[in-house]
C-alpha cells in the first residue's frame, strides 16, 4: 500500500466513522425535542420518558462524535499538510464557524442533560432546540468546506499557489447549497428511519408498550419527510456535478464516451481498461434527461479527459448505484408509512410495514457512507478540484500504514462498544416503564 493510499484510507475511515455520529448529532436532538414538546402539549408521561431516553443516547453518541471530530481536525495537519498550507486561509473560515456551532451544541447539550429539574419546561425545551439548530448549522459549515473542494471559488491563483482569497465567496461556492441540503436531509432520513427501525423491531418482537409506538411515530416524523425529499435534493446535486465536475459525473454514471442523448445505466461494472461499462441496464436518453433535463444533451465521457485525471471509475459507479438504490428504497418505505398514516391506520399494527422499516433501518447510514465515496473518490485525483492534486497534499512522512492500522483498530473497538452500549439501552425498554431513566452520572448528582 502506498503512503498516499494509506493516508486516504485513514481519512476515509475517520470520516466514515465520524459521519455516522455527526448525522445522529444533527437529527437525534430534533427527535428528542419533538418528544419533549409532545410531552409539554399532552402531558403523557411516555413522551417524557422518550425524551429522557433519547437524550441519554444523544449524550453518548455526541461524545463519540466530539472525540472523532477532534481527531479529524488534527488529521487535516497530520495527513494533509499540503492541503492546509494551500487552503487553510479559505477553509479556515467555515471551519471556525463550525467550531462555534459545535461549541454551542456542546454547551446547550450540557444544559439540557443536567437541567431537567433546574430549568423551567420552556427554557429546557429551548435549550434542546438550540442543540438541534446548532447541530444542523455545524453540518452546513462543514459541507461548505467540502463544497469548496468540489467547486472552488473565491481564490486567485498564480504559479500554483493562492495569492488572494475571498473567504465569503469560498463559503458560498456553487456546491454549498446542494451539498448542505443533501447532507442535512441525509442526517434526518438516516437517523430517523434507523431509530424508527429499532422501535419497529421492538414492536415486532413482542414489546407492546405505548413507548415504542410513540417513539416510532416521532422518529418517522423526522425520517420520512426527509427520505421523501432526498431524491429531489439528489437531482439538484447531480445536475450541479454534471455542469461543474463532468469527469465525476462520467465516473459515477460509467460513461466513457462523449455522447448526445446518453443512456442512464442501472447497475453494471465499468471496465476502465476497455473503457466500457458492462452488464448495465440502459435506459435510452435517461442520463441526458436527468443530468441536464434535456432529451439530447451531450454528456462528456471519461475519454474526453486525460487518463491521469480519471477518478477510479468502478468504485465510484458502484457506490453511486448503491446510494441511489438504498435512497429509493427508503423513499418507498417512507411513502408507504405516509399512506398508512393518511388512511388513519395505526402504523404499529402493520406487520409488513414494520418489517420493511426494520429492513431499511441501516440503509440511510450505508447510503451516507457510499455517498461520501461518490463525492470524495469521484473528485480524485484532485483534493481541490482542478487546483490541487491529492498527491501534492499528502504528508511526506513515510510508513503511514502504521497510523492507519492504529486508528482503524481504535475505531473498530470504539464502534463495537458504542453498538453494545446502545443495544443495552434499547433492550432496557423492552419491559415495563422503568422508574428511573437517568444515567448514573445524574443519579450521583
Amino acid at each position, binding site marked *: 500500500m502506498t503512503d498516499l493510499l494509506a493516508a486516504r484510507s485513514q481519512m476515509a475511515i475517520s470520516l466514515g466513522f465520524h459521519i455516522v455520529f455527526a448525522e445522529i448529532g444533527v437529527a437525534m436532538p430534533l427527535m428528542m425535542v419533538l418528544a419533549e414538546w409532545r410531552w409539554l402539549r399532552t402531558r403523557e408521561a411516555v413522551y417524557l420518558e422518550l425524551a429522557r431516553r433519547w437524550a441519554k443516547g444523544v449524550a453518548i453518541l455526541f461524545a463519540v462524535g466530539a*472525540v472523532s471530530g477532534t481527531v479529524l481536525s488534527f488529521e487535516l495537519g497530520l495527513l494533509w499538510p499540503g492541503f492546509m498550507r494551500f487552503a487553510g486561509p479559505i477553509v479556515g473560515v467555515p471551519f471556525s464557524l463550525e467550531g462555534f456551532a459545535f461549541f454551542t451544541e456542546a*454547551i446547550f447539550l450540557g444544559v439540557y442533560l443536567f437541567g431537567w429539574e433546574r430549568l423551567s419546561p420552556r427554557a429546557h425545551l429551548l435549550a434542546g432546540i438550540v442543540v438541534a439548530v446548532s447541530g444542523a448549522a455545524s453540518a452546513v459549515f462543514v459541507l461548505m468546506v467540502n463544497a469548496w473542494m468540489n467547486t472552488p471559488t473565491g481564490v486567485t491563483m498564480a504559479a500554483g499557489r493562492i495569492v488572494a482569497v475571498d473567504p465569503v465567496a469560498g463559503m458560498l461556492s456553487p456546491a454549498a447549497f446542494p451539498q448542505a441540503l443533501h447532507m442535512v436531509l441525509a442526517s434526518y432520513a438516516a437517523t430517523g428511519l434507523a431509530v424508527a427501525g429499532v422501535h419497529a423491531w421492538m414492536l415486532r418482537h413482542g414489546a407492546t408498550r405505548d413507548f415504542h409506538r410513540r417513539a416510532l411515530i416521532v422518529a418517522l416524523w423526522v425520517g420520512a419527510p426527509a427520505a421523501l425529499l432526498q431524491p429531489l435534493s439528489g437531482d439538484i446535486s447531480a445536475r450541479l456535478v454534471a455542469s461543474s465536475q463532468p469527469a465525476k459525473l462520467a465516473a459515477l454514471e460509467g460513461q466513457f464516451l462523449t455522447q448526445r442523448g446518453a443512456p442512464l445505466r442501472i447497475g453494471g461494472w465499468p471496465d476502465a481498461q476497455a473503457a466500457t461499462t458492462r452488464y448495465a441496464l440502459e435506459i435510452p436518453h435517461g442520463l441526458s434527461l436527468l443530468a441536464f433535463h434535456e432529451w439530447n444533451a451531450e454528456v462528456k465521457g471519461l475519454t474526453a479527459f486525460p487518463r491521469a485525471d480519471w477518478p477510479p471509475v468502478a468504485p465510484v459507479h458502484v457506490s453511486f448505484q448503491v446510494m441511489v438504490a438504498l435512497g429509493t428504497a427508503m423513499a418507498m418505505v417512507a411513502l408507504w408509512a405516509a399512506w398508512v398514516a393518511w388512511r388513519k391506520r395505526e402504523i404499529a399494527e402493520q406487520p409488513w410495514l414494520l418489517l420493511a422499516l426494520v429492513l431499511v433501518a441501516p440503509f440511510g447510514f450505508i447510503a451516507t457512507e457510499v455517498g461520501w465515496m461518490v463525492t470524495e473518490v469521484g473528485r480524485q485525483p484532485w483534493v481541490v478540484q482542478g487546483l490541487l492534486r491529492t498527491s501534492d497534499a499528502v504528508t511526506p512522512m513515510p510508513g503511514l500504514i502504521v497510523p492507519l492500522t492504529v486508528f482503524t483498530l481504535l475505531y473498530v473497538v470504539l464502534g463495537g462498544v458504542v453498538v453494545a452500549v446502545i443495544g443495552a439501552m434499547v433492550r432496557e425498554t423492552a419491559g415495563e416503564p422503568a422508574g428511573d431513566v437517568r444515567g448514573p452520572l445524574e443519579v450521583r448528582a
Partner: protein
Amino acid sequence: MTFVPAPLGLPELFAGIIVVALNVYVLTGGADFGAGVWDLFASGPRRNQQRDFIAHTIGPIWEANHVWLVLVVVLTFTAFPAAFATLGTVLHIPLALMLVGIVLRGAAFVFRGYGSRSQEERRNWGRIFAVASTFTPLTLGVVIGAVSTGAVGVAQAQIGAASFRSVFVAPWWSPFPVAVGVLALALFAMLAAVYLAYETQDGPLREDFRRRALVAAVAVFVAAFGALAVAHRDAPLMRAGLVGSAWAVPFQVATGLSAITAIGALWWRRYTVARLAAAAQLSLILWGWAFAQFPYLVPSDLTIRNTVAPRITLVIVAWALAAGAVLLIPSLLYLRRTFATQRTR
C-alpha cells in the same frame, strides 16, 4: 536576547488568542486530565470515594472543555496555515499519540458513566480512562517542548534529505521535550488536586487531595528545574527568552511567587487562594513559553508574520470570534451555573 520591538497587529492578536485558548484549555481540560491521573493513583481507605468524586466533578463539562483544543487547532490552521502544516508533518507521531489518548479517555469516561451496568466493565473503562489521562498530558508537553527547541523548523527543511529518525523522531524524542512532558503532567496533576480539594465538602477526602496537591507541587518544582537545566543545551532560544530578556525577571518572579503561594495556601488549607495561585502558576508558565519564543511560531524560521493568512481571513474570523464570545461566554457560565445548582441539590 534583548527585547526586539516587533510589529503588533492583527496577526499578533491571533497568536495571542491562540495562547488564550490554549490557556483556557490547560486550565479546564488540563484539570480534567489531572483528575484522571488521580483516578489512576487513587489509594488508601477512601480510594472509591476519590474516584467517585473525580467522575462527579468532571461531569458534563468535558465535551465543552475539549472544544478549546479544537479552537486552538482551527485558529492555528486558519491564521497560520504554514505553521500548522509544519507541526502536523514533523510532530506527526506525538500528535497522533496524543489523539489516541484523547479518544480513549473521552470515550472511556462516557462509557463508564453511562454505558454498562456491570461493575467490572465500569472498572475496566475507569482504568483506561485513568491511564489515557496520564499519558495524554505527556504527549501534549512533548509537543510544546519540541516546538520550542527549534528542531521542528530544522527538520521540516530536511525532509527528503535526512533520515526518518532525524526528521520525524529526533525533534521530539530528546531530553527537553520529554522534560516539558513531565512538567505538563505534574502541573495538570497539581491543578486537578487543588481543584478537587477546593470543591469537595468532605473533610477526609479534602485532606487526601490536599496531600496529593502538595506532592504534585514538589514534582512541578523538580520537573521545572529539570527542564530549565536541559534547556541550556537543547532549547537555547527558550532559555535565552526565559532567563535573559528584559521581561523575564518580573515574569520569573511572578511565576515563582504563585508557586510558593500555592504551596503555602495548601499548607495552611486556604483552598480558594490555592486554586487561584495554581491556575496563575500554570498560566504564567504557558505565557512565559509564548513570550520567550515570540515572534516565532515554529522556531527557528516560521514566525507570526511569515506564516500569516491573508488579512481578509483574519478580519472575518476576528468578527466571528467577537460574536461568538458574546454568545458563548454567557452560555458557558449558564451551563456552569446549571451544573453547580444540580450538584448541590
